[in-house]
C-alpha cells in the first residue's frame, strides 16, 4: 500500500493549500475551519489549545534562545523551541508578552507542563499537515 502511494505521480499543491496550511499553523484548528471541516477543527484545535493552556497552567515553561545562551547552549534550546514554535500564534503571543518563559521547577507538575507545551506544538504540526493535505486533495 505504501509502495503504491509512493509510486503515484506527485501533483503540485495549489497556493491555497499552502495558505490553509499556514493558517492551521498560526491558529490551531483554523486550517480545517476554513475548509468547512468543523469536527476535525474542533478535535484537532481543541486538543492543541487544551494542551497548550493546561501546560502553562500547571507550571510548564516555553523555550527560546535568550541572550545568555551562547554556542552549544543555544543549540540545545533550538530543538525544544522548534517544538514550541509549532503552536503558532499561541507561542508568538507568549513570546511578545513574555508569558510562560519563567521556569517553575519547584512545582510538582513542572515536567508535565513542559511535556504538554512541547507536544501541543508538535501535534499542531501534524494538524497543519493534515489541513495542507486536505486542501491539496491528497486526503478526504
Amino acid at each position, binding site marked *: 500500500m505504501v509502495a503504491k502511494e509512493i509510486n503515484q505521480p506527485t501533483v503540485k499543491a495549489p497556493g491555497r493549500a499552502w495558505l490553509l496550511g499556514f493558517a492551521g499553523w498560526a491558529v490551531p484548528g483554523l486550517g480545517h475551519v476554513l475548509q468547512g471541516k468543523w469536527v476535525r477543527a474542533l478535535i484537532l484545535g481543541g486538543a492543541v489549545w487544551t494542551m497548550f493552556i493546561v501546560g502553562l497552567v500547571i507550571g510548564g515553561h516555553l523555550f527560546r534562545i535568550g541572550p545568555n545562551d551562547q554556542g552549544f547552549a543555544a543549540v540545545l534550546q533550538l530543538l525544544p523551541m522548534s517544538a514550541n514554535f509549532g503552536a503558532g500564534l499561541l507561542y508568538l503571543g507568549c513570546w511578545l508578552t513574555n508569558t510562560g518563559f519563567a521556569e517553575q521547577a519547584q512545582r510538582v507538575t513542572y515536567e*508535565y507542563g513542559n*511535556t504538554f507545551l512541547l507536544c501541543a506544538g508538535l*501535534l499542531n504540526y*501534524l*494538524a497543519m*499537515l493534515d489541513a495542507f493535505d486536505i486542501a491539496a486533495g491528497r*486526503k478526504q
Partner: protein
Amino acid sequence: MRHVLWMALFASLTAFVFGVVAKGSDRQRLMYGLKVFAEFMVIAFILGWVLYFLPLR
C-alpha cells in the same frame, strides 16, 4: 493519583489527534485512536512499576 490523571489527559489528547489525522474509515481511525491511548497507558504503567523496583537512590 494526580500524576495518573495528567498522564491520562495527555494520552487522550494525543490519541485524539493521532486518530483524526490517520487514514482509513471512521471506524479504523477510532480503533487506531483507542489503540494509541491504550498503548500510552499500558506502557506508562509498565515503566512505572519497573522504575518502582529499581534502586535509584
